[in-house]
């Protein structure tokens, strides 16, 4: 007799809605003659809002579904919202970036929605296979999105590089999963927990764990698995770069934390030292390399590498507070970085013409409000109070200090002090320098204004009133401990 799995469609409804919305946009826009981009964006936004509405009641759940393949808990709930925010803001920031007559104009939104759905499966995966399928769903969409600018060799190069190296890292991840399966006889996270609790594991299991860590480290762009990041971030369309830097990173960290705290929690002593080294390398290299960048997208790419280092500190700390710090940091980073890349997209214009930091000269004169908003994002990236970026760093650093990782925090503090230099360089260009040529008029669209408005309010609001969100993060990580 065939065993039917427990079907809990309500539990994965947010992801399902994104999938359906993607299909609907894909089909409907075939028959739209004019304004396809606007129509696609509006439909996507509706889909995302609906998914958000479907997600809200899920916080109370604490169960697994589909034969233990997905786990529905506050942790998934938190990340579902985070992904919806990231996807939604990216949709808003992308409208003016695309034109109706270019190929791939509305497929852009379809792929965005599919990758959002993939992320959701990844964060709620309770089984290495679910996580892998989610990872691939989001990755394949992103490979295409990175190369979606027509007739742009940089964009195509980015897509191809990301595809090749992404495939490479997926292979490593799968190999790790296979080794774990070979040891434990299952790739379900609860089964792995049981296996490691028993304490009879050999080097094969450890190697499997190491390969999994590398697979995740690639996706979050930790040093030395970061090399693709600057090239891909530079070549991809700017809103997509923003989406990659927060969405992919958040989903990868979510799965990283869940797998390593839930399934591999017993091996904490083993992986902590590796993550310690990765975090230190990532912070040092990311920040130092960012200092010499003149292209703002590359600079933000290295900055995003550096931020992965800070987030890894939260994992190294290993406590509830540390992981809650990771969640909060990712939330803060979502608002901040999508906002920053939104401004870069706005200034850079469609053809990515103005992405040198000298193009920001005198922005405060020509667009004072935009310069202010950008400064707030940069302050948050630099971790200057009262922005959200500060609270995130503070939460993570203090959790690490409480566990005695003083040197790691010293490296973090030192490098983030150095990071102020390159963030402020942009602020200085905006406020204290005069452009050599008259700057091009920027094309503001209502949706971009909305996106930047939400992002800046988010950065400031959760920076000034962080308590609610930190507690939310703290409750969300409870299922892992």
């Amino acid at each position: 007799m065939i065993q039917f799995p427990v079907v809990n469609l309500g539990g994965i409804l947010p992801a399902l809605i994104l999938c359906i919305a993607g299909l609907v946009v894909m089909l409907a826009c075939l028959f739209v003659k004019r304004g396809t981009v606007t129509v696609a964006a509006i439909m996507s936004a509706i889909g995302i809002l609906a998914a958000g509405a479907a997600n809200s009641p899920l916080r109370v759940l604490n169960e697994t579904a589909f034969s233990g393949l997905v786990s529905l808990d506050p942790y998934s709930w938190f990340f579902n919202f985070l992904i919806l925010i990231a996807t939604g803001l990216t949709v808003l920031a992308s409208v003016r970036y695309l034109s109706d007559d270019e190929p791939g104009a509305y497929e852009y939104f379809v792929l965005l929605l599919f990758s959002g759905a993939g992320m959701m499966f990844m964060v709620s995966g309770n089984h290495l296979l679910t996580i892998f399928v989610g990872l691939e769903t989001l990755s394949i969409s992103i490979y295409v999105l990175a190369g979606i600018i027509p007739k742009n060799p940089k964009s195509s190069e980015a897509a191809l590089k990301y595809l090749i190296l992404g495939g490479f890292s997926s292979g490593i991840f799968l190999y790790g999963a296979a080794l774990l399966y070979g040891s434990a006889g299952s790739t379900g996270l609860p089964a792995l927990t049981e296996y490691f609790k028993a304490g009879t594991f050999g080097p094969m299991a450890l190697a499997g764990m190491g390969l999994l860590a590398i697979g995740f480290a690639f996706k979050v762009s930790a040093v030395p698995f970061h090399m693709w990041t600057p090239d891909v971030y530079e070549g991809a369309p700017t809103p997509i770069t923003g989406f990659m830097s927060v969405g992919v990173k958040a989903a990868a960290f979510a799965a990283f934390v869940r797998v390593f705290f839930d399934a591999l929690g017993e091996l904490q002593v083993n992986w902590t030292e590796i993550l310690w080294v990765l975090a230190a390398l990532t912070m040092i290299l990311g920040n130092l390399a960012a200092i010499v960048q003149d292209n703002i997208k590359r600079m933000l790419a290295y900055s995003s590498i550096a931020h992965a280092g800070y987030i890894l500190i939260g994992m190294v700390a290993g406590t509830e507070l540390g992981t809650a710090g990771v969640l909060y940091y990712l939330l803060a980073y979502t608002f901040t970085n999508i906002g920053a890349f939104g401004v870069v997209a706005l200034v850079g214009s469609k053809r990515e013409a103005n992405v040198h930091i000298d193009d920001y000269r005198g922005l405060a004169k020509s667009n004072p409000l935009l310069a202010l908003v950008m400064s707030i994002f940069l302050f948050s990236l630099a971790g200057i109070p009262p922005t959200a970026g500060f609270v995130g760093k503070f939460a993570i650093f203090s959790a690490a200090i409480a566990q005695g990782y003083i040197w790691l925090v010293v490296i973090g503090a030192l490098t983030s002090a150095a990071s102020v230099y390159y963030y402020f360089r942009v602020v200085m260009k905006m406020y204290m320098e005069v452009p050599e040529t008259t700057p091009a008029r920027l094309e503001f669209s209502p949706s971009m204004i909305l996106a930047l408005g939400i992002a800046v309010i988010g950065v400031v609001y959760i920076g000034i009133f962080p308590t609610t969100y930190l507690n939310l993060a703290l409750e969300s990580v409870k299922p892992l401990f």
Partner: protein
Amino acid sequence: MINSYLPILVILLVSAFIGLAIIVLSTLLSRKNPTPIKLMPYECGMDPIGGARRRFSVRFFIIGMLFIVFDIELMFLFPWAVVYDQLMIFGFIEMLVFVLVLLAGLIYVWKKGALEWQ
């Protein structure tokens, strides 16, 4: 444990022997009258001369990929059909969803003109 692999070893040896035997026998027994044409590698009906890295039309790949997608759909339908009587309504809906999703894709590629050769 290792015993269960024995038949495989036997098959390996037997097939290797038969293959070798045919080659050796035909070399020993046949009459040899080589010409350049005869020495060419054999490919059914096609002219074997020319660069191997020929450019194919990109449409070939698109059609090829679409073929694989629907081929796999078919692969899934076979086992499903075998146990259909046990799956009942649940299985029917599951497969309906699967087929509909692929149908959406088909409509998309059709409308986009990916099935036209021009």
